[in-house]
């Protein structure tokens, strides 16, 4: 396939799955006539009609609950959060009903549901439109949480999420929609629970996801030029974490740096540190370093915004510092 933009890769995933299974439908704000706030569903309304690409009123908690009810009774809804931050209004339905209802019902019902949409810190969108909800939701039992980062994994992961029989929160990043890549012509699916080894190396394991993967890869150039050999892992699955891949890497490098865009307090990195200590403490040659966004509402001013999130140069320095301590 010729070069495909990430948002088009997502659309292709939805289109293919809708063609493959009549019970799959999309609902959300402006997904239909308008084509989605980031054009992920553009053209699908014309193809599938207004019940399968359902424009909803601005009522996040209710349309999310409605999707849960539809999923319980046999459909496979895909909710688009116009911006993932808006799903704070749907927290109750995502937690109590998408996440917990299957267990609470003793297995009476399944909830095959995808909740996807743009999140992360964009370009000067202000605090409310720059939220990273993955950490807020990670404690909810029964949810799977996935973050895509390239056109290739976006498509393969979204297709798998749609076929999964569980509720999947699927995070896209506002600044990654225009990434381009050649995609395979043939159909492919990617596992939801597998991390992706972006670069093999032996010095230090860098754990990252979503847009920060690209900040890490920017840091790789200066680092490798100076002879450093980091291993980079894109977590992909934020819940459950893929400790097979993470653990194998730690047993090789014995050092870990986490680079994330969510806030430090109670973040994905915080969970990683705790779990790594639980499982691999004896393997570590240095304390795990956690590089996160500042614990502040994302400021509007561009400079301040840049100071809020981790920059490639800081990653370079962190790697050097950690390896300077090498005994």
């Amino acid at each position: 396939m010729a070069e495909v933009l990430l948002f088009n890769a997502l659309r292709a995933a939805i289109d293919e799955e809708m063609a493959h299974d009549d019970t799959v439908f999309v609902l959300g704000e402006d997904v239909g006539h308008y084509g989605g706030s980031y054009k992920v569903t553009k053209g699908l309304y014309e193809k599938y009609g207004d019940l399968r690409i359902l424009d909803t009123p601005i009522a996040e908690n209710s349309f999310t609950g409605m999707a849960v009810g539809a999923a319980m009774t046999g459909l496979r809804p895909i909710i688009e959060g116009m911006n993932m931050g808006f799903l704070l209004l749907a927290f109750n339905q995502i937690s109590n009903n998408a996440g917990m209802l299957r267990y609470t019902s003793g297995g009476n019902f399944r909830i095959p549901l995808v909740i996807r949409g743009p999140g992360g810190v964009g370009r000067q969108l202000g605090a409310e439109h720059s939220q990273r909800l993955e950490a807020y939701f990670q404690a909810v039992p029964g949810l799977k949480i996935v973050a895509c980062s390239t056109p290739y994994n976006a498509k393969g992961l979204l297709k798998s999420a749609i076929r999964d029989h569980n509720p999947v929160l699927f995070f896209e990043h506002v600044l990654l929609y225009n990434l381009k890549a050649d995609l395979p012509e043939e159909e492919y699916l990617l596992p939801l629970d597998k991390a992706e080894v972006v670069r093999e190396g032996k010095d230090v394991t860098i754990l990252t996801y979503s847009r920060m993967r690209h900040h890490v890869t920017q840091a790789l150039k200066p680092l490798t030029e100076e002879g450093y050999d980091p291993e980079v892992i894109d977590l992909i699955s934020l819940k459950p974490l893929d400790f097979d891949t993470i653990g194998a890497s730690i047993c090789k490098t014995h050092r870990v740096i986490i680079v994330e865009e969510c806030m430090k307090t109670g973040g994905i990195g915080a969970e990683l540190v705790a779990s790594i200590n639980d499982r691999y403490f004896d393997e570590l040659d240095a304390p795990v370093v956690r590089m996160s966004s500042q614990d502040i509402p994302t400021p509007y001013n561009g400079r301040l915004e840049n100071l809020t999130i981790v920059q490639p140069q800081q990653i370079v320095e962190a790697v050097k510092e950690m390896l300077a301590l090498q005994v």
Partner: protein
Amino acid sequence: MVQERILPTFQADSSTITRQEGLQLYKDMVLGRLFEDKCAEMYYRGKMFGFVHLYNGQEAVSTGVIKAMRPGEDFVCSTYRDHVHALSSGVPAREVMAELFGKSTGCSKGRGGSMHLFSAEHNLLGGFAFVAEGIPIATGAAFQTKYRREVLGDQTADQVTACFIGDGATNNGQFFECLNMAVLWKLPILFVVENNKWAIGMAHQRATSQPEIYRKASVFGMPGFEVDGMDVLAVRTVAQQAVARARAGEGPTLIEALTYRFRGHSLADPDELRSKSEKEEWLTRDPIKKLAAYLSEQDLVGQDELKDIQQQTQSLINEAVQFAQESPEPDPQELRRFIFAEDE
């Protein structure tokens, strides 16, 4: 005391129901009543735990609505006050009782408890412990029926969903949001408000700007009806019309049933706030006695038969307790079972 709302009157005559129907309604209401009485007993004897909300007094609503629907085909969505909705929906008393005992044979396998009763087999969508959160779920089930019919071309998809909520829930945004969507997409759903005048200790007229809830339908262009919630025949008649509309693809209906709970909010509630006179007044409208009187007046059922029904129901409930008592606890090995779809 605030002026009581005048209950709308309903004139039942001899043609309103057949003997068979009368027996069915009576049995269902007695089952609900005696089941709840047994729950109170078992709760105080330390056999069930947590918050247990009983339905005594409101039986005419559950029976009147659910028995106007197709068992096992139509969907029922309840609240935390869900035991009797589950029973009317056909979930066996023993499975409900076992759930309240936390046993593995319970309808939610001991994972849910009183406020989380579910049965896929009987299309009982829950059991929702948070006020109003079931409304979107019910709306989704109704959307599913429409989708199945119009997108998947299934001409047999004419199921109706009944969504039960309290007066307190109607002040929540999910109520208004779902009324809006249900009309917008003409969904086959009944919003059944059981207005028992109280939301724990919050009197209805202190919580809402327009206490006549059925009127709130009109701004959405939805038909809204008030009905005497202590009269099962009145409830049933309104419900039948709403079910017929929904089944014919004509969209949702809001039904406000004026009713009263004969016990405290939950078994943990000392029930000190509601006045004695209010309680006494409503006790005179006991819906089961009202139906019994009608059945005798119309010569449909004899007194002895009604007594027999009570006795048979009592033994069924006693058996349910025995079943619950003898059932095994969930296997500790299965603590994590049912989190994900894969662990069937």
